[in-house]
């Protein structure tokens, strides 16, 4: 009898357990998908935290069904824009002394924590030799440089350490050295900057939760740190709940149906699609600061961004005088002024996704870091294959797929690849950020008139550094029937690049310094006249200009090892400038017949010092803030 009971009991229990598990699974909220480790951990109290609400479920949930997309996102710099600081996350070396603002800092590891020891030499002289220790709680960036955040001790308000790590140079610089701001001005070091400003775009679903009446009260949180899946696809809780049912999933797989309760930017109308990127890559403001601070952004992917936020379209801090964006990271502002975007045919409207690819294709053979650099789409079925191929443009402008038509259009020999690249003429490097020039995302054509009225360099003279605006105007008239504007004597006789690096404002000087190191420009313009101009820029008042000049000088073999520190003392800057000048002069001695008055070179190959100094006296010293 007992055996008979067992024989019935065991299978009944097994089936009941199986059915029970299914019922429990369906009755449980989608939140069970959340990372249980993160959920169990005690939340930090002295820094912003991750907290899922408003339908956000985090990338850890998305991974289960979208491993490929998760994998490419995981390799992107978007993910690492904001990270909780652990030893693995810190790109800078540990144990190395860093001198900044009169104090000495040193990163140390303690278990999973990152600490920074701070020694004040003034206090040490008085006998206080014990360094202070601060815990580094968060980091920003992993591509060009990395900044570090420590608690202020006032709620979740944090502040930036006064130095950041330059990844390519593998060294620390004071943080203001990474931005084009007038010397002595650097607002990012103020307490709470991440909470009320950086969190806008460096986290997913941020809520600043700042009490603007008492700025020490900041309870900042975000659904996820970094720019994660739901930044572009929207909160996914409903989507997850729907697709927990395998029937729904396989129905979608077999019918190639669009996802339910989720946004795919590539399926949106073109303008809405670009707005997904524009929510961060655009300069926007919210109508109600207090509401935003408490509840976060109302905009979700698929919404009309322009109805929910104000798009800033002008202003000295970010724009050229004609309204073209001048700083990096705000490419949406450039795009929306582009004829390819503004025309009326939605099927022909250019979007970010015509050139960029947010998830790397399986057949993309580029190393992952190369793809991650700008997340550019790669075109493989053309003679101009590559991430910056003309095919991005010939998707619509098909006529220029024909090499002969292209050469007739560019008036440059087919063998000069850079001169037959659409980008170089129509998306020239006229924006600034991350200590380098970046391509304009407003597609336009070279115009001398525009340069005269805005000061923005035209594409021809970005390559032909040794040519005047007169030369450019003549060519544009003869080749493209563009009416030549009236030009003064300087523009007729002195190269546009020389005028930019001597008379220009800090932004123009930075761009000018950068392009003297740009390979196509160096090939087109010759380089043996550049050193004295770059030497002068080594002592420029703006850190960013000095950095651009030193980077370009490093392209010259004889100046590759000057030991220049663009954040160094005035004496150091002057000494390296003298070194460069003297070396260049010594190389020129005895050479005749290499004069070129457009770049201020005499027949003996010397600099026309009086003209040079005359131009320098006219330097535009108005303060420039290119606030990325």
């Amino acid at each position, binding site marked *: 009898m007992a*055996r008979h009971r*067992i*024989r019935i009991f*065991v*299978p009944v229990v*097994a089936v009941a357990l199986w059915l029970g598990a299914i019922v429990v699974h369906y009755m449980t909220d989608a939140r069970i998908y959340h990372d249980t480790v993160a959920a169990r951990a005690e939340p930090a109290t002295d820094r912003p935290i991750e907290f899922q609400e408003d339908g956000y479920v985090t990338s850890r949930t998305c*991974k*289960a*069904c*979208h*491993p*490929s*997309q*998760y*994998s*490419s996102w*995981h390799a992107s710099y978007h993910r690492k824009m904001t990270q909780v600081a652990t030893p693995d996350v810190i790109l800078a070396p540990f144990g190395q002394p860093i001198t900044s603002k009169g104090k000495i800092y040193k990163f140390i590891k303690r278990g999973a924590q990152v600490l920074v020891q701070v020694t004040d030499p003034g206090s040490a002289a008085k006998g206080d030799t014990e360094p202070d220790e601060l815990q580094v709680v968060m980091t920003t960036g992993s591509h060009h440089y990395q900044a570090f955040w420590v608690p202020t001790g006032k709620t979740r308000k944090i502040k930036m350490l006064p130095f950041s790590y330059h990844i390519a140079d593998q060294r620390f610089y004071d943080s203001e050295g990474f931005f084009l701001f007038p010397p002595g001005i650097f607002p990012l070091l103020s307490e709470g900057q991440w909470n009320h400003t950086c969190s806008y775009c460096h986290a997913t679903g941020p809520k600043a939760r700042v009490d603007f009446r008492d700025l020490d009260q900041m309870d900042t949180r975000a659904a996820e740190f970094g720019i994660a899946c739901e930044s572009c696809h929207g909160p996914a809780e409903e989507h997850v709940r729907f697709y927990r049912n*395998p029937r729904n*999933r*396989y129905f979608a*797989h077999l019918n190639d149906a669009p996802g339910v309760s989720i946004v795919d930017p590539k399926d949106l109308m073109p303008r809405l699609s670009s707005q997904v990127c524009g929510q961060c890559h655009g300069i926007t403001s919210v109508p109600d600061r207090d509401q935003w601070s408490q509840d976060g952004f109302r905009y979700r992917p698929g919404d009309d961004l322009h109805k929910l936020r104000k798009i800033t379209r002008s202003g000295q801090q970010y724009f050229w005088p004609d309204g073209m964006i001048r700083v990096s990271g705000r490419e949406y502002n450039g795009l929306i002024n582009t004829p390819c975007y503004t025309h009326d045919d939605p099927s022909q409207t250019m979007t970010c996704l015509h050139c960029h690819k947010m998830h790397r294709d*399986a057949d993309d053979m580029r190393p992952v870091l190369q793809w991650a650099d700008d997340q550019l789409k790669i075109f493989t079925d053309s003679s101009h294959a590559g991430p910056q191929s003309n095919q991005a443009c010939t998707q619509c402008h098909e006529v220029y797929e024909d090499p002969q038509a292209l050469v007739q259009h560019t008036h440059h020999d087919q063998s000069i690849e850079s001169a037959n690249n659409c980008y170089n003429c129509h998306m020239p490097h006229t924006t600034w950020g991350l200590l380098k020039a970046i391509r304009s995302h407003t597609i336009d054509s070279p115009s001398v008139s525009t340069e005269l009225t805005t000061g923005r360099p035209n594409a021809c003279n970005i390559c032909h550094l040794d040519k005047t605006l007169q030369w450019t105007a003549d060519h544009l008239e003869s080749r493209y029937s563009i009416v030549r504007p009236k030009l003064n004597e300087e523009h007729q006789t002195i190269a546009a690049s020389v005028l930019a690096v001597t008379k220009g404002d800090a932004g123009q000087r930075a761009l000018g310094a950068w392009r003297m190191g740009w390979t196509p420009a160096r090939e087109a313009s010759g380089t043996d006249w550049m050193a004295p101009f770059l030497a002068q820029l080594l002592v420029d008042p703006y850190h960013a200009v000095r950095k651009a000049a030193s980077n370009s000088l490093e392209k010259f073999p004889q100046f590759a090892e000057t030991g220049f520190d663009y954040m160094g003392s005035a004496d150091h800057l002057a000494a390296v400038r003298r070194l460069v000048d003297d070396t260049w002069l010594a190389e020129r001695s005895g050479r005749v017949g290499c004069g070129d008055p457009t770049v201020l070179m005499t027949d003996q190959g010397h600099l026309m010092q009086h003209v040079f100094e005359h131009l320098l006296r006219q330097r535009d010293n108005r303060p420039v803030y290119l606030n990325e």
Partner: protein
Amino acid sequence: MTEPATSPCSSDCQGYVRRHLRFGWWSLLAFLTLGILLESFHGFKAAWFVNVDQETRRLLWRLAHAHGTFFALVHIAFAATVFLVPTLQSGLRRAASWCLMAVSIVLPSGFFFGGFGVYGGDPGLGIFLLPLGAAMLFIAVFVIAWGATANR
């Protein structure tokens, strides 16, 4: 002189023992070979197998290997059970044998073919063999357990 030991297992019973031992050992060899193949994919870092976005395929093929190997051992255990429990009724023995044979093909195949045509985190359509295999496995084990518990 001693009497030769006579097996309690009838000739029908011995047929099942031989069949499942044969099937068990050969399928063990087959699925161990699959395991070696999968290890070599790891060894040579075959991108279509070890890349992060191939996680679903990797999991399914590992499951095919693990289940196949395990069922091979189950066949050997079943042969031993049939030999040691001669009271197992002929009908039950036949049903269990048939189900076990089917399960050993259907379940690993479901995992293996589910590794083709993967939909992101979801297996390919081969995975739909699994419920069938699971049901047959349940029946087989139930029948064996029932028979092994029967009164002599």
